[in-house]
């Protein structure tokens, strides 16, 4: 495959799959934080 195809592959994987993983990671961190706060308040 030409180099431009590999670049498209990398861009697609980084933007789409990387973006999803980043957002899920953020959401998970928020959930963990929320859980800790709830525990403290109780």
């Amino acid at each position, binding site marked *: *495959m*030409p180099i*431009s*195809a*590999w670049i*498209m*592959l990398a*861009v*697609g994987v980084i*933007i*789409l*799959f990387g*973006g*999803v993983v980043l*957002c*899920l990671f*953020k*959401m998970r*961190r*928020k959930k963990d934080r929320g859980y800790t706060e709830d525990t403290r308040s109780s």
Partner: protein
Amino acid sequence: MCYANGGGAFLIPYFVALLTAGIPIMILEFSLGHRISRPAPMALGNVKKGFEILGWFALLIGFGICTYYAVVMGWCFNYLGFSVNLAWGQNTESFFFNQFLKISDSPMQIGGIQWMIVLGLALTWVCVIAAIWKGVKTVGKVVYFTVIIPWVILIVLVIRGITLPGALEGLRFYLTPQFSALLDYKVWLAAYSQVFFSLTIGFGVQITYASFLPKKADVVNNAFIVSLANNATSFLGGFAVFSTLGYYAHQTGLPVSEVVKSGPHLAFVTYPTIISMLPFAASIFGILFFLMLLTLGIDSAFSLVEAGAASIIDKFKLKRIHVNIGFAIIAGLVGLVYTTQSGLYWLDIVDYFMNNYGLLVVGIVQCFAVGYFYSHKDIHDYVKRHPHDRSIFSIPAKIVELRKYANSKSDFTIGVWWDFCVKYLTPVVVGILFLTNIIERVKSPYGGYSRWAEFLGGWLVIIVFVVVAVILYRKKGSK
């Protein structure tokens, strides 16, 4: 879509459309739905009364799409059965067009109804209505199956595809950008339409679903996850499709660019041909492929139906069971047009108009409505709480309040780039593409069809939807 628009070249406008229109409008719809907590027509009517018409129009576009989408799912039900003994035989093209659809010569030669397709259509509507029987409660459970099953099957098909001989040639075609295609406005129009269609934005669906979210839900992060995960699935799907096309090209000795036509040809002619060529377990891969299409299609269909049903229930306070069954009967009856021998022609015309005109118009006007007219009673409270934030005082900056609301509910924040996209970039880019396409249609009818067929299947449908939207807006709701 990717295949018909220059292969790898399509991915560039597709990503641009995702970042400049898809994600900004997704955030807009999520924020508005979450903020107002009502379905699309009422949420847009809250921005300014008259925009309720836009909400109903958006839902009617979804209804229009449902009518033929369910027929395509009906084809899938039939092909699921055909997969068991590979009933399509050696000449898959003749089987699909001549034996299965019994296609006529033109849209005006209606021909008879194909009863096997009607049976598939009825089965589809039964599944859709069962999925939304108790609204979001059942939808929330059904999506565990309709999302996980196709993903598992997709991974199986990707692995099978890329391990076939010639797969690399197909992937090369998929991923190599042909920069000359970027000069063609049709490629950009297709990219924007596809982003609208695949993200279900401009249908009023995301506004309605966001209205069901808990008040603590993360608006921006959810919008990003939905947009990126959807497009990641499409991107992955490309590997399954193009690797098998590479295999097909390898087996037939033809270049990848010549082995397939766009549209239903890919799923119902080329793919069955490839399935028949597979060295082992051809039937199983056939069943998996059509089961994947079915679950994905039913998933999309019930999201559209639920958005419409929720809006009607909200405004007219009708019983859910009556709305669901009424919706299925009306959409099923309209769908009979696509089960006739000329059904494929009408499906093609209506699909083109719904995607290229209906959705884009809703997208543009929705940006305009929220970008320039959005106002909320909480703006006054916000001013009291943030006396030093001067941006809120400029009238066009009312959208700032919606952005701040979204940010207040989100783990990571959006900046002024979002305001810029909603107010200027998205409406201007989509507007230019829309107008260019209108001019093209004035010059010549779509797809080489007659002017009369184009009017009946395209313009007339749009006009009817506008009239019905106005009637629904003017009709008094029940308290």
